[in-house]
């Protein structure tokens, strides 16, 4: 299995969690998995076999044929991780507020009202 396939698998598990689970906390966990799977996908895109960290110092600059991994997806994913953390935090804050009002975490019972 390549990392790209694994990331799609994780995406599907996250989607399953968001859609099927009734517990709100589990939905939020699914959401976090969705976001992390995308992070995994991007990092896998930037990976090269036998690649080193993309830090160019004197040693790497002088040696010919050094393979470096692509740094752009990693830089992008730093931003995406920040976004996903703030999303998870907001979702959990909403869950706390909803629990205080409804006294339950079951989506079926909340949506019935």
């Amino acid at each position: 299995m390549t990392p790209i396939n694994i990331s799609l698998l994780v995406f599907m598990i996250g989607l399953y969690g968001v859609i099927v689970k009734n517990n709100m906390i589990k939905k939020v966990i699914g959401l976090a998995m969705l976001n992390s799977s995308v992070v995994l996908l991007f990092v896998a895109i930037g990976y090269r076999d036998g690649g080193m960290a993309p830090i160019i110092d004197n040693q790497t600059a002088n040696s010919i044929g050094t393979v470096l991994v692509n740094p752009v997806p990693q830089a992008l994913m730093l931003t995406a991780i920040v976004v996903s953390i703030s999303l998870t935090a907001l979702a959990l804050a909403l869950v706390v507020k909803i629990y205080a009002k409804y006294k339950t975490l079951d989506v079926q019972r909340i949506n019935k009202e």
Partner: protein
Amino acid sequence: MFAHLPILIIIFPLAIAFIIIFLFKKYSPFLSIIGVTVSFILLIRFAPFIHKGDELLYHLGGWQSPLGISLSIDGLSFFFSFTVLLVGIMVILYSIPEKKYNHNYYFLLLLLLSSMIGVIFTADIFNIYILFELVSIVTCLLVAYYQQRVALRASFNYLLISTVALSLFLLGVGSLYSMAGVLGISSISKQIPMIFAENPKIITVSLVLILTSMGIKSAMVPMHGWLPDAHSLAPSSVSAILSGVVVKLGIYCLIRLLYGLFIAGDYHGYFGSSLQLLMIFGAVNIIFGAMMALAQDDLKRMLAYSTIVQIGVILIGISINNTTGFEGALFHIFNHALLKSGLFFCAGIITLQTGKRKIKDFAGYGEKNPFVALCFTILSLGIIGIPPMNGFVSKFLVCLSAVEEEHPVFAIIIIIGSLMTAAYFFRVIQIFYSEPIQSDKNISTIDCEKSYLFQPRIFELSPIFILTGISIIMGIIPSLGLSIVSPAIKVIFSSLLPVLP
């Protein structure tokens, strides 16, 4: 002179937002109106430049295109940001007299406006994702502003659905990036033929992912579940900005990415078939939305379903792939932004004055506040598409283009949708001007607005009057509105030209 204007338009409301939250909480309404107005004036300075059909590329910090972040202003983004800022000014003007919003509200509103302009201006497909996430986070906070039970629930559902949509979008971006190696929209579109030759499946995958995600964000019908809740349970001013412009952002990204990226990959008819799909979605939106709106007994919920109907008209217009249809669709985006935000303002005032939300409780409202009832009537005539109003012009253009391109079925569906729209709006208007029913057992279960008897003075209704006025003027002199739209159409169809031979 234009050197740093594009970033200033985004930065100015953002800076004012943080000044409000950290320094001058007391003067938040005043400061926020200044922030948005200055941004609007700065945008207007682009008008003659845009009218010539030019495009401005601005590189942030002077870093050139593949490395740095760039913003681009062309006709399409000018049109959308004009609409966003116009509605933004009106929303702030409407919120000031209600006096129940504190500095947090203005902070979030300015953040929402500046991030929306960011989505519109950016020339980078990854930045669209980041800024769109920002838009949906702020939207969630605004929907749950009063922290009532139902509003919290609606906000949570909106957060879940929009995050799933944007994750799908990011997957699409990832699959494009894995082949193209760049993120700028124009530089990807140059590489699309090469990617297609190498691995056509990638194009299919990313097209499907981006269509799905933007379909969710713009409430195409099987994926519309979040819209009625979020739009009807938010505070009225927030509903106005959500229905007026935030939904249109999904449409903007559809136009920008479909016509900017995938048109070049139209070798096996992907582009044409996705347009046909959008057209069918539009028809479903119109019929389903109108039927659901007829069934509602809550005024704001009815208006929310009416938004779904109008999104259907816009989808048909953008997917017909001819100049007239595009003109109609973009003009309808502008008109619907004005009309629907006006209607939500009216609904907000009505809810505040009567303390109720159900349509049947509004009997006799026409005598209580004749101005608001009159404006509601005029604006709803616009949504229906009665001739002297602007809604007529745009719907007529879309119908005309459907007939021109030999899809008369869609023209008929739009007309049927307009008739059903008339049915559900006239029901409300009839109740406004009927005798009030004497009953003291009025149970209104969902009290989203903090109900106190609010007696607006005339000048506090000014945003409603301004929106009604603009709508009537745009209806009588449609060339005025079409002159804003025409540079946008040039942008879209100039990207079409190289593919035609």
